[in-house]
């Protein structure tokens, strides 16, 4: 049985990691706390922009540092609302069909995402994914430390994560599929037998064309 590995942000949903983060920053216990966190995020913006350009893993680590001090309860309690308000409306029209198609062909559907596990899990339930591999916040005394538990799901690490997943489930990577919108996911796309890019930017599209990978649009604009 093959697996279909999906990047999530930008591939199945139009939002990126910043959107749910912004939701959490705004929805703090008091307006003062919210303002403080937003101000901290604003100061971090140049670092985030630089790391986004330089290294996807560094970007993830910088972004999730903004969660430092948020309580586990608040994050989990607000997860349903974050999903309903931020992620669910952003699901691309074609995403349900593509995932359903993969399921209908007997594929094991796996979401591989830099987003937080408790949010991706909700999306997986909605779309019918079998497994999720997502970033996990580290908690101490029920508060986020602002660090991620290893392995950090980003960039080249996704390729290793997929390899490990396939091996542990007895899957042949040559038979497997992978979908992503991001140039940083080229390693993940390269390890499977059937890669495809989804609404790529110009650089990824050039690469996809050169490698003769299918180019999909799930946003209903084709």
């Amino acid at each position, binding site marked *: 049985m093959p697996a279909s590995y999906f990047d999530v942000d930008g591939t199945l949903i139009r939002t990126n990691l910043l959107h749910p983060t912004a939701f959490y920053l705004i929805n703090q216990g008091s307006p003062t706390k919210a303002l403080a966190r937003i101000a901290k995020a604003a100061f971090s913006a140049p670092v985030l922009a630089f790391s986004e350009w330089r290294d996807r893993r560094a970007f993830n680590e910088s972004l999730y540092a903004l969660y430092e001090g948020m309580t586990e309860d608040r994050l989990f309690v607000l997860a349903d609302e974050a999903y309903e308000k931020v992620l669910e409306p952003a699901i691309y029209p074609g995403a349900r069909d593509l995932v359903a198609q993969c399921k*209908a*062909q007997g594929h094991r559907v796996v979401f591989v995402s830099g987003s937080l596990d408790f949010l991706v899990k909700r999306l997986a339930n909605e779309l019918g994914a079998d497994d999720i591999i997502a970033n996990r916040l580290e908690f101490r005394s029920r508060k986020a430390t602002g660090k991620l538990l290893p392995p950090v799901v980003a960039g080249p690490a996704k390729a290793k994560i997929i390899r490990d997943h396939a091996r542990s489930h007895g899957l042949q990577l040559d038979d497997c599929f992978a979908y992503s919108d991001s140039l940083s996911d080229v390693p993940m796309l390269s390890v499977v037998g059937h890669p495809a890019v989804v609404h790529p930017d110009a650089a990824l599209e050039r690469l996809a064309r050169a490698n*003769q990978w299918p180019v*999909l649009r799930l946003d209903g604009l*084709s």
Partner: protein
Amino acid sequence: MNHPCVITLDKKSPPRTLFSGDKLVKVDLPAGTRVIYPKPPLAGLKDPDAAIRYAINHPHGSPPLYAKLKPGMKVTIAVDDISVCLPPMKRPDVRQRVLEIVLEQMRDHGVDDVHIIIATSFHRRMREWELRNMLGDKIVDAYWPKKLYNHDAEDPAGMKYVGTTELGEPVVLNRRAVESDLIIYVNLNLVPMDGGHKSVTVGLCGYDSLKPHHNPHVMRKCHSYMDPPKSALNTVVERMGKITDAALDVFTIETTINNRMFDKPLGFLSKKEEDYTMAERAALDAMIYTLDRTPSHLRQEIFQRVPAPYELTGVWAGKTEHVHPHTLKKCFEQYSVPATGQADIVVAGVPYISPYNINAYLNPLLVQVMVEGYLHNLYRGAPVVKKGGTVIAFHPCSDRFDPDQHAPYIEFVHRVLPETRDAMVMHKKYEEEFSKNPSYIELYRKGHAYHPVHPFYMWYWGEAGRQHRGRVILVGPDNEYVPKLLGYETAKTFADALEMAKDTHGRNPAITCMHVPPIGMVDMTPTGSSATSTSSNAALAAHGGEA
């Protein structure tokens, strides 16, 4: 006595002008070569709209269309897709003319629930601008996209079972059409393999209903696709079509066009080279010079964007089985050129266009389908080339694909063909895997790609030709490895290719040049002497009087 479209070259004959993809080449064929040209275009109907009105008001085997219409009824109009005609015709397309008249009758009779479905089967979806060219702005503005759309054979909720033939072949068709009170099919019959039961039963079907006939077993038994009684494909489709006809009310409108493929500046390409005027010779030289120096993408644009001035030559309506014989008769009247004596070697140019690459590049798999699928099958009676004969074809055969239209073709050519060229093996080993590829299915359903099994069908399409011919030698390819994947030999020049072919057929082989496009076909009567591999053009002359 030769048919006027059949000539035999002598030492003073000028070179022939053949297509090599989107370029033209002058080919010096040896004296004694028989050249078969398409017939000149039949005269178009003087008043196409009047002819269409007459046809739907005086149908065959059915009450007139107006008598079938009742207020409030549910009607689906299915229309042939962009695969016909080649290249797309000047506006207004025949289908637009027919639709405008049919829709007017709908309105007059209070029929509002009308959907127009492009009967793409496993072909790619048509784009809005392509529909505007085909159906006109008025219809597209009024119906697109909710009531005018492409058929989707992979929509799980969009297909409905109709019945099964006595041989167990399931007929599963577009749900909207099946659930309609009336289906009207608007056909554009380019060649004799089009139309008839193929329109609804193939155009609106899904994979389960394609499998019984789109497979190498059936394709091998087609002699030829263009001769319906001798086509196993047609036999299966007719059997399934009877199930469709028994269950559904289908009103068929079939149309034929002439073969006026080239408009005035290029009109000389349809003529015999002997008949070129001085001005046309100069125009040809200028064109060859320019095309040789024009970038490939621009050449493609030039050819693909120039519509053809086809004219309507006939229109008939009514019950499918009553209508189609009239259509076929007109098709053969346009295309059939009688000839006697098969050839050891057939020479032909492969043009830039096929039914499956409108607004895209003719990729290597489609080169194969043109050589072994279409060129080989342009006959009734017997193939133009003898059993074991050689085909010399002109095309660059570049390793180039349109990634949007032909995404699954790329994998087929570069993954399946290196493993096997045996259609039976690929049918068993790879077809199912491709048919389930979610990326390709998504591209077919939401993008503009052919269905993932379409490249297999393209290979099967060449199966009868492949079983019959001996060698294929491609002249002027820009690479060696792609022709090799297709099982073709290569030569730099026609002279080299001819020398290679003579290794098989002796020093004085019977050579026939099929001067297409425009489309023409041959009613071939084989002769006893030409059945031997060493028969000469002199022998051909003795038996057929054509050398």
